[in-house]
């Protein structure tokens, strides 16, 4: 009796907690509403399953608890029932998987007009690079990294000369323009994570990884590292400022290109 009651309370308590919880996702600031919607569908299906399972179990514990004269029913198999349950489960699973895969295909298909932006991780800070006027990022190599070339850009690549290098400063992005974020690490794994954007991806030394999103809300968003990268992991913070096109252009005009930076360093 008590046991059944506690089980019911666990199920009800979980649902009540879900509705009353002050801890919920951050207000979205990107185009990935579909991710949030798939998550909500999943909450509904799994929530219903959880309440049904724990509720049924509580009822069994109450109804079939041991009392004098209680005997168990002997029934080794019931193929029909098992078949029905399999089909119902398969349908529930399909109802979650189908929208999930649909949204994933969008997640991995980068729009053609997306602007490329590079984010470089190292223990324990972020740097950024924008493609400059030609719209292309120049090549880079870890072997080229030095005190005067912190991101290892190829000095002989003409495409890289106008690249804007942002070191120890915030990344700025214009609103409503899709961005393809190219991720590079020069030491260990990192993961550029802004909760409001919903999307993230690890960066792996030796490869370039990517994800894309469109910022949909202006503001300043804190970026964290989401892949354990050593003792400084929690301190590895950054900031993304999403601005209107005009504000963004004003900010951009004040930034140095790779060629300018090299010239300044050489002059010193």
């Amino acid at each position, binding site marked *: 009796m008590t*046991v059944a009651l*506690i*089980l019911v309370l*666990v199920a009800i308590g979980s649902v009540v*907690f879900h509705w009353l919880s*002050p801890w*919920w*996702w*951050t207000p979205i600031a990107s185009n990935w509403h579909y991710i949030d919607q*798939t998550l909500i569908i999943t909450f509904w299906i*799994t929530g219903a399953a959880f309440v049904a399972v*724990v509720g049924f*179990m509580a009822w*069994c514990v109450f109804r*079939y608890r041991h009392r004098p004269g209680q*005997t*168990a*029913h002997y*029934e*080794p198999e*019931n193929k029909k029932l*098992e078949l029905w*349950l*399999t089909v119902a*489960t*398969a349908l529930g699973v399909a109802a979650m*998987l189908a929208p*999930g*895969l649909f949204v*994933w295909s969008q997640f*991995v298909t980068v729009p053609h007009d997306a602007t490329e932006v590079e984010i470089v991780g*190292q*223990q324990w800070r972020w740097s950024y690079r924008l493609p400059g006027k030609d719209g292309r990022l120049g090549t880079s190599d*870890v*072997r080229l990294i030095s005190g005067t070339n912190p991101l*290892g850009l190829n000095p002989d690549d003409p495409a890289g000369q106008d690249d804007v290098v942002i070191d120890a400063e915030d990344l700025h992005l214009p609103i409503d323009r899709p961005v393809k974020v190219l991720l590079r690490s020069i*030491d*260990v794994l990192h*993961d550029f994570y802004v*909760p409001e954007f*919903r999307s*993230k*991806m690890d960066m*792996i*030394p*030796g*490869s370039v990884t990517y994800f894309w999103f469109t910022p949909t809300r202006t503001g300043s*968003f*804190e970026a*964290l*590292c*989401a*892949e*354990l*990268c*050593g*003792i*400084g*992991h*929690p301190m590895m913070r950054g900031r993304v400022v999403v601005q209107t096109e005009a504000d963004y252009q004003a900010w951009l005009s004040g930034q140095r290109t790779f060629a300018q930076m090299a010239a300044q360093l050489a002059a010193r």
Partner: protein
Amino acid sequence: MGDVADAAGAAIPHPDSEEDDLYHPHSWLTKYVFSQDAKVIGVQYSLTAISIGMVALVLSWLMRLQLGFPGTFDFIDPPAYYQFITMHGMIMVVYLLTALFLGGFGNYLIPLMLGARDMVFPYVNMLSYWIYLLAVLVLVASFFAPGGPTGAGWTLYPPQAVLSGTPGQEWGIVLMLVSLALFIIGFTMGGLNYVVTVLQARTRGMTLMRMPLTIWGIFTATVMALLAFPALLVGAVMMLLDRLLGTSFFMPSLVEMGQQLRYGGGSPILFQHLFWFFGHPEVYIVALPAFGIVSDLIATHARRNIFGYRMMVWAIVAIGALSFVVWAHHMYVSGMHPYFGFFFATTTLIIAIPTALKLYNWLLTLWRGDIHLTVPMLFALGFIVTFVNGGLTGLFLGNVVVDVPLSDTMFVVAHFHMVMGVAPVMVIFGGLYHWYPKVTGRLLNETLGRIHFWVTFLGAYLIFFPMHYLGLLGVPRRYHDLGQTAFVPDSAHTLNAFISVVALTVGVAQLIFLFNLFWSLRHGRNAGGNPWNATTLEWQTPETPPGHGNWGAAQPVVYRWAYDYSVPGAERDFIPQNDPTAVGMTR
């Protein structure tokens, strides 16, 4: 012995050959220490696993103190914190759960439940334990090595694991990898034993489809472990070479703190594939024995046949096979080719179907049962609640696009603790309360058992259920200190403090269990041979605790499946497997 006919009239085959005599111990040392008796080895495995598990428990208290009350405990600095989480994770998954389910329960139960006299290779079995113990000692040694144990996280991802920004770079990571290699060698010796024993040493009449589900779970998990652990061994050996000899299996060109290192050309993500090729089957290596054991606990204590036995067996085998093609769902945001996501999300969600079937069959076993709310049954119920909860949140993380915002957050921590921490531990406790009387001849104290259950079950639920919502909010995992983060409200810090207080309480409740374990050894109620009126063979031994060789003069002969509970027309509400009565499932 002449031919014996079972109830259906089919002749049960005459033994092919005479029994070999076992190596009987001649001294205290060979009886209790260097024993070749699987039962003693099982107890040795269990005690060692529980001891090292206590270390992991204390580590979890320390990390919860830091998370709940950051800045209060000076000695938990970032290196220490990362060492604690790493060792906690590795100990719990490998040295406690795997060792206890397969080495502990496996050794004790396989020969007994199959009517065998012992494992088929008793000497190798003994070696298996001693190598396991050595692996544990090497692991413990890393706490005392210069620089301490590794703090690379239990996943040991390179390049971080072998670089200087991670604590334990000097000795810790080396000892960890050596210890894992030893563990795998030891396990392989035991594992081959379990598989051959199940296939070759079952007593007469014990067909595969009459085996208790406990054995099906342990057997399938062992086959999986024999296939999955080599991937980890390879990964560990290669990383050891990277660390010690400067090879570059997993190390690309990189710059560490402004210094160009001499590595180049290796692939960090290759290690992740190797690790999870082991790591995901590992989840089921822990889960399948738990599935099996809990099936037997539910059937026995609900006095009802397990519902859909054949479906349960096929579900175990299907889950075991499928679990080898889902590994990269741990890597959706690792930077692997994004098209992998379609495949691995599909396989991952498909595996939910046989898993859900097992759940239904447990519920349908309770339905129309005669439920005795004994301590093992309570733990079985606790398992169902936590396993369902953790399994359902797995559908979030397995569904590739939903995983993107949630991966690497506290949601993941909450999910895997619920599903492969709390749930299997519930089964371990249930199993210990259930089989302790066979091991010692005495029952564990029931009042202490109930207190232990309620504090552990409700406490664990209170720890991990709200934690999901921290992850949903965006709180990342493996943070020594959240500090000031714009999107994290103060209430989240309060919740963290609450979780820590509950975690310490649950931790203390485990001391009640330890006390019970020792106290009942002398003061527990006398159990007799079969205190739960169970059908399976281990409860039908001539002596309790069973002697070396288990069965006295003659091995039992099996006439029926393991679940003849409450058979209409039977004298009692259970018919042991070695009872030739003509009612029940004797075909």
